[in-house]
Every structure is written in structure tokens, then in C-alpha cells.
């Protein structure tokens, strides 16, 4: 007890050095455990989300970009496919196609244009409010709502993709009708709206005042000039003026989630898009993510090696610090020896200090690991959203 008392008194006296040693020790102990926890959580989250998304249809090109944009709404999007591709899946009657349009953002959150089937497919319903019903309505992911302090009745405004885009992508005000519960998935970080609303943002559909009332138009033609006012808000008063240009089957989608009726239907659907000449492809996100996770874990092995090397270096530094501390206490040990202390007591004085430091480092490391584990899902979701 005396050795512990004296060691504690010495550590308290040199508190800055003691705190530094405890912090370094805790980091050495905690980092491998935390990285393993986060990697395991990331693997589980990535895999679970991908495995819950049976098939993704999109334009032929990077399979990874296609899967990541449809499953995680990543900013790297493949070339768009058209509604014709979605209709083609409908026509097979082998599964349910769910459109995804992820080209736009609002306040840093991606706007996902989709159908209400998406929410049923993901098994999620608004915690507050309701799903969007008409053009111009939006449902917020939980983290977006929390970050921006928004709820049903508020509005968000879409950001044009390009500040210099004069090609009709005007900001559109969206009315928030609901907020989803936290899911720990990328759904928390996006704003959902009807795919038609996304097309309005894209300028494919729009509403505007008639520059010359139709009744006054000559020869039945509607005329307009540069002063034509385009609506940036969809309201009950102007919603009827909204209309779309071009053939519906040509409207763009980022990807289509395909939910096959059964395994056989899924196999048949995959077979139909095997032709490399087909501009449309179907991918299985689980397969792609499995490959990605394998790569991540190969990198994680490297990370472990780096952590080990840094840990050894830090331990050596700690050892040096303790050795120097011991050297500085040499006069004390000489005094203790003169006063009758034996080698055991002197060793106890040194070991007690190391034991207290190690104990404190273990406690701090345990707190860090428990904190990470208790917030593991949120941390993993945050990491995956980066």
C-alpha cells in the first residue's frame, strides 16, 4: 500500500507526464480494438444493406458505381438509364422495379427521387408526418432532419448541380411532409421525394405563368417571351400548370432497384442483361460489396500492421519515459536504501507506478472502446456517409 501511495503521489505531482503516458497507453490499447469494432460494424452495415438490395439495374459501365449509387446514394453516379429500362422490367412481370434519381442535393443532403414502393421495400415508415403524395413534397432522413432542425411543414430548397447551369435546373422549394426514423443506413442522410419531383428539378417538368392568356392567343398558339415566369414552388394553386416535356420513356433515372418475385425470377432477370452489347446491366450489390469489403479488410490488415509498428514505437517511447523517470528518482531510491528499504520495496516503488499507469490506461482504453461500441452503429453510419 505504501508503494502504491508513494507512486500515486509521484504521478500526481508530475501530472502532465502521467496524463500523457496514460493517454498514449490508452490509445495503444484502444486503437486496435476500436478499428476492429468499426471494421466489423462497417462490414456488417455494408453487407446488410447490400444483401437487402437484391438487384440493381442501370447503364452498363462501372458495376461498383452503379451498386454504390443505388445502395448508398454515393456521389459517383453511373450514366443514367431511361424510364424505358424500368418499364421493360415491369413488362417481364418478374419483379418490382423501384426508380432512383439521385442527381440533386439540398443543403448537402442528396435528393433521392423514387416511388413510395421504396419505403415499403426498405420496411420504413415516417416517424413523423407522412410519405410524399404530390409533386413538390419531400420526406427527410432522420439525420438530415436533426442536422437542419426541420420537420413536417418546413421547406428545403434544392441546389442546382452547377452554379453556372442556365439550362433550366432551377432551385425548387420542397415541402417537408414527413421525417423517417433513424435507421443507421444511408437513408438517414438523404431527402426523399417523388421521382417526378426530381424530374421537375431537372427541368424536364415545370410550371409557369402563361405570358399571354390562352384565350387571347392568335391561331390557338400560346406565345411567350423572355419574361416568362417559371415557378420555383409547387403549390395547390399552380400544381395543375406543371407538365413534362418529351416522351416519358426517355426520362432519366440513376438506377432501378429490382425486387424479383422469387429466386427464379431473379435468375431470369439477370440472364436477360448478360449481353455485353446491352446498354443496360443488372448487378447483384451483395456480390460487389463482398468484393469491396474483402479489399477493405486487406487494407485493414495493412492498417493493423501500421498500428502495431506505431504501438511498438509508442511503447518504446513510454518505456523510455518511465526509464528516465526512474533515473530521476534514483536519489530517492538511494535515500530509501539508506533508510532501510530493501530491493523488494524499491522494485515495488517502480512497479507500483507502472501498475497505476497501466491500470489507468486500461480503464481509459476500456471507456473508449465501450463508448465506440455503444455508439458503434451511429459511428459506422457516419463513417460510411463520409
Amino acid at each position: 500500500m505504501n508503494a502504491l501511495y508513494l507512486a500515486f503521489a509521484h504521478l500526481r505531482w508530475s501530472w502532465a507526464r502521467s496524463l500523457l503516458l496514460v493517454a498514449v497507453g490508452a490509445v495503444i490499447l484502444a486503437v486496435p480494438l476500436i478499428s476492429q469494432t468499426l471494421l466489423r460494424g462497417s462490414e456488417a452495415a455494408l453487407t446488410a444493406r447490400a444483401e437487402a438490395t437484391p438487384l440493381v439495374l442501370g447503364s452498363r459501365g462501372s458495376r461498383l458505381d452503379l451498386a454504390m449509387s443505388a445502395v448508398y446514394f454515393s456521389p459517383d453516379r453511373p450514366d443514367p438509364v431511361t424510364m424505358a429500362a424500368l418499364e421493360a422490367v415491369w413488362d417481364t412481370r418478374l419483379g418490382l422495379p423501384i426508380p432512383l434519381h439521385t442527381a440533386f442535393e439540398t443543403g448537402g443532403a442528396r435528393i433521392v427521387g423514387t416511388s413510395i414502393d421504396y419505403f415499403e421495400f426498405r420496411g420504413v415508415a415516417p416517424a413523423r408526418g407522412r410519405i410524399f403524395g404530390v409533386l413538390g413534397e419531400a420526406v427527410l432522413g432522420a439525420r438530415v432532419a436533426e442536422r437542419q432542425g426541420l420537420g413536417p411543414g418546413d421547406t428545403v430548397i434544392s441546389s442546382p448541380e452547377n452554379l453556372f447551369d442556365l439550362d433550366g435546373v432551377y432551385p425548387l422549394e420542397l415541402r417537408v411532409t414527413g421525417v423517417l426514423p433513424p435507421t443507421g443506413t444511408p437513408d438517414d442522410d438523404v431527402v426523399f421525394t417523388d421521382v417526378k419531383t426530381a424530374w421537375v428539378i431537372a427541368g424536364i417538368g415545370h410550371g409557369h405563368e402563361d405570358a399571354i392568356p390562352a384565350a387571347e392567343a392568335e391561331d390557338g398558339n400560346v406565345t411567350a417571351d423572355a419574361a416568362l415566369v417559371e415557378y420555383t414552388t409547387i403549390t395547390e394553386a399552380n400544381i395543375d400548370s406543371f407538365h413534362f416535356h418529351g416522351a416519358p420513356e426517355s426520362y432519366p433515372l440513376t438506377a432501378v432497384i429490382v425486387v424479383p418475385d422469387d429466386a427464379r425470377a431473379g435468375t431470369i432477370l439477370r440472364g436477360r442483361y448478360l449481353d455485353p452489347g446491352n446498354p443496360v446491366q443488372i448487378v447483384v450489390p451483395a456480390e460487389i460489396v463482398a468484393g469491396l469489403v474483402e479489399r477493405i479488410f486487406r487494407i485493414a490488415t495493412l492498417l493493423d500492421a501500421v498500428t502495431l509498428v506505431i504501438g511498438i514505437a509508442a511503447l518504446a517511447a513510454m518505456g523510455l519515459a518511465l526509464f528516465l523517470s526512474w533515473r530521476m528518482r534514483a536519489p530517492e531510491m538511494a535515500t530509501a536504501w539508506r533508510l532501510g528499504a530493501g530491493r523488494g520495496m524499491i522494485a515495488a516503488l517502480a512497479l507500483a507506478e507502472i501498475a497505476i499507469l497501466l491500470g489507468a490506461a486500461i480503464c481509459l482504453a476500456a471507456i473508449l472502446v465501450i463508448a465506440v461500441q455503444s455508439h458503434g452503429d451511429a459511428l459506422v453510419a457516419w463513417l460510411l456517409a463520409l
Partner: protein
Amino acid sequence: MIEIADLSFAYPVGRFRLAIPHLAVAEGARVAVVGPSGTGKTTLLNLVSGISRPERGDVTVAGQDLASLSERQRRMFRARNIGFVFQNFALLDYLTARENILYPCRVGPGLRLDRDVRDRAEDLARACGIAERLGTRPGALSQGEQQRVAICRALVTQPRLILADEATGNLDPATKTQILDLLFARAQDCGATILAVTHDHALLPRFDRVIDFADLGARP
């Protein structure tokens, strides 16, 4: 209190040799040890305290023949019977004056830090005029105060012998006298014998006896 007979001692390295045919110090005496540097004054203190063992001869302290004791027994004997006062005070920076006084009871074998010891420490501090400074660390004490703390530490175990090695060497002349008087008074309170190495000849009249190493058989 101290009886040395036919003592011979040499360090493993070097040509130094200390030889004392006979030396006796009576109980309660205040004895100064003087002599040129390197003649073995500190070595004598080490032999009397059992830190060093002679090659030959007998060292008897408080009736105990140190040569007959094992190293552990000598440490226990030292902890219980001998108090040390060092020239550099040897106080621990990280402990308060109170904890420095109690330090021997924390590290010494067979010693207990109980209520009696704590009360004794308070009494000693009061007697030495540092009662108000017990919660202060050595860095904030004057040199005189530090040596008073060191004297309290030497006496807290109620030793029968106090070994002082240049105990006043780092003090100014006025403080030297005060500290020496204090050491004598407190040692007298507990009936302890004092064997003090000093280079300060001005202090010698205060001692009962002076052992001059120039007259002993030390050969540097």
C-alpha cells in the same frame, strides 16, 4: 553505543583503506567526525549503519554486532535504530513536508505508520518550528526549513543513533547554529547519540567529543 574494534575496510576498486583499531562512543554523546576529504568519514557512517560491511573487525551498535546480521537484518536494524541527516537534505519533491517526515515509516522494513507515528511527526514539527509548513512541498521551503524537515524525518522513528553527514554544509552560518542546536535538543529529547561528520571547525565546540580522522588509520 558504538564499539569498533580492529576494523579494516577497503572498497573493491581503488587503493583506499580504512583501519580503525579501536573506537568507542558512549550512549547519548554528541560526537563530531572531522578530517580531510577522502579519509573515510562517510565510510565510517556507512559501516556504523550497516550499509557497508568491514573486511575484518567488529562493529557493535546499541549492543548489536552488525557482522552477525544478514543483509535484511541489518536493514531492519538500520530502519529501527538509526536516523540519517544528509547534507543535501534528500527530501522528496513530490511529497509534502509531513509526508517526507513520515517517509521512513513507509519504506522501512518492519515499521508501521500508525496514529502514534503521525502524532510524533506533528510534535517534532512543532518542536522544530515547522508545524505551519507541514503541508508544503520542499520546493517552497527555505533551506533551513528543509533541514528541519530532514531532522524530523531522522527522529520520527525514535532512533538510538543519528548519523549526520555534513548536515549543516549547505546552510548559512546563522542557520547552521540553529539547526545544530535543534538537532542536539531533539536528539536529547529521545536520548539519541549523534555521530556527525563536519568540515566546519567553528561548530566543534558544541560537540562533546571530536574524532579527527587525520589521527586514525585511514590511507587514501
